[in-house]
């Protein structure tokens, strides 16, 4: 038994919940939700001081999902951790439902920020990190960015700000799955050399396989040890990870849900015969 087996089980549960919500709503963003499952599993189980009991404590760690379209993963993790019932999955995107298409802090327990407008989550997280330093709190702020999101100019405004203020209590993770809404990153606005870009902006950069728990663990350990600089973890991932017909297929970015045989296949692959 690997010491990461419990995490693998947790990740499998998240994949089940993601596909379940995706099928209930008949839409959503399954591709980018599946690519960040291991990262969010690690954060919620091993990294963050954040749970139902301390969700309003000013000293809690914060997680800001800047790539708000991957809300399914965050909802799955919050439900798994007891923030709300999985029954809520049925009302995703429905009038009166607790779960909006994109995260909403006023409606859903455990959500820190109304993200979804790309580029703003990093800046908000930087504000949280600076606010924590000013208040003398030792809590940390984590934010998950999409690779396509790095097209936004505000991201680089934020990078300058984070380095200028030596915010070593923030970790940004880039879910680098190489695909964005319209096509491959390389065919939209090329990001490379990405590591050099963050380094040039004064950030501590770590590059990992974003589905590999040992690498994820090492990265967050190194981020904690870094003093005086913000850390960015470039996590190489696979869009649609875990569902064979979704992996690396651009059309599963968004506005899609598996139907018919696709649905049977998806539920089977994540070890689930029917909707939760």
């Amino acid at each position, binding site marked *: 038994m690997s010491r990461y087996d419990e995490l693998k089980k947790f990740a499998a549960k998240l994949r089940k919940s993601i596909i379940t919500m995706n099928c209930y709503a008949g839409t959503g963003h399954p591709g980018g939700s599946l690519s960040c499952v291991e990262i969010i599993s690690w954060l919620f189980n091993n990294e963050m001081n954040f749970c139902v009991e301390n969700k309003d404590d000013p000293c809690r760690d914060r997680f800001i999902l800047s790539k708000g379209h991957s809300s399914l993963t965050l909802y799955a993790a919050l439900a798994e951790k007891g923030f709300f019932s999985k029954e809520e999955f049925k009302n995703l995107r429905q009038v009166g439902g607790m779960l909006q298409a994109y995260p909403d802090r006023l409606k859903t327990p455990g959500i820190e920020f109304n993200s979804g407008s790309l580029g*703003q989550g990093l*800046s908000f997280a930087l504000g949280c990190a600076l606010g924590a330093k000013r208040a003398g709190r030792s809590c940390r702020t984590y934010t998950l960015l999409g690779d396509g999101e790095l097209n936004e100019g*505000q991201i680089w*405004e934020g990078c300058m700000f984070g380095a200028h203020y030596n915010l070593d209590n923030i970790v940004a993770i880039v879910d680098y799955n190489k695909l964005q809404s319209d096509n491959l990153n390389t065919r939209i606005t090329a990001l490379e050399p990405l590591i050099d870009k963050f380094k040039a902006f004064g950030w501590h950069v770590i590059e990992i396989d974003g589905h590999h728990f040992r690498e994820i663990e090492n990265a967050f350990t190194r981020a904690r040890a870094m003093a005086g600089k913000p850390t960015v973890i470039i996590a190489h991932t696979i869009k649609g990870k875990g569902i064979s017909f979704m992996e690396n297929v651009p059309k599963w970015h968004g506005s899609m849900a598996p139907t018919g045989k696709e649905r049977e296949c998806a539920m089977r692959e994540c070890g689930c015969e029917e909707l939760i």
Partner: protein
Amino acid sequence: MENMRDAFGKVLAELAEQRDDFVVLDADVSVGTGTYHFRDAYPDRFIQCGIAEQNMLSVAAGIAESGVTAIATCYSIFAIRAIEQARNSIAYPEFNVKIAASHLGLDVGPDGATHQAIEDIAVFRSIPRMSVISPADPIELKAVMPYILDNPGPLYLRTGRSPLPNVFDENTIFEHGKANILHEGTDATIMAVGVMVHRALKAAKLLAGEGIFCRVLNMSWIKPMDENAVVSAAKETGAIVTCEDHTKYGGLGSAVMEIVCENHPVPVERVAVNDIFGASGEPEDLAIEYGLTPSDIVKAVKRVLKRK
């Protein structure tokens, strides 16, 4: 006559002596906005964000999340640049951020069209949860600041740039969302905001000389707007002229017309910038060029009286 920006910076520094529950963010314009007074007195509570207004507004939301009020300052036109951040980072999540913008309208003067925000009322008042206030003189600005800090929620504060003559005395009481009656009259009501308030008072004096007596209202609270004052003016004076250094689309005039049409229709005339961009020039010359002078207000009152 005190400069509005100096009044703003000084009142921030004065308030910082009394309370530690707010910080000030700036986008490399602390001299222009007057926040250098605060920065020099309380450097550890001043957060310089550089020329990056979009990042500044989202950072301000994050700072507010930590439990302090964030006052984000910049020029009005560049607050409009970050309007989506104001909406999605501040108003929608309901963070306690006050966006304090200076350099309003044609009153900015020689810097010309790129720096003259004549759309800010229209843009900010359209955002749910966002309050909008535009004080008429340094006395009102200083009086409302403690109130603004005591009341949580997103707010857009138009602080202006120019020296403005005092229209209030030091003992005036300002209430949330209430218009102030500055001059009584029954023939028509002149409603003005910001730099136009003292021009409206001049117009009322000119009109009084001709036997036309106008009520003059300071409409600094654009949102929430004092509906009772507007409806009373419509009922009691039967005609309204609105005055603003702002495009005629979506600003004070539009807001007043919405209330009048829904409650008690009477003729309304707008003194505002027509559908046109500004240009370089001294503020008073631009006021003449674009029709924002006391005599333009006088003409508008005479027009509205004919429609009564």
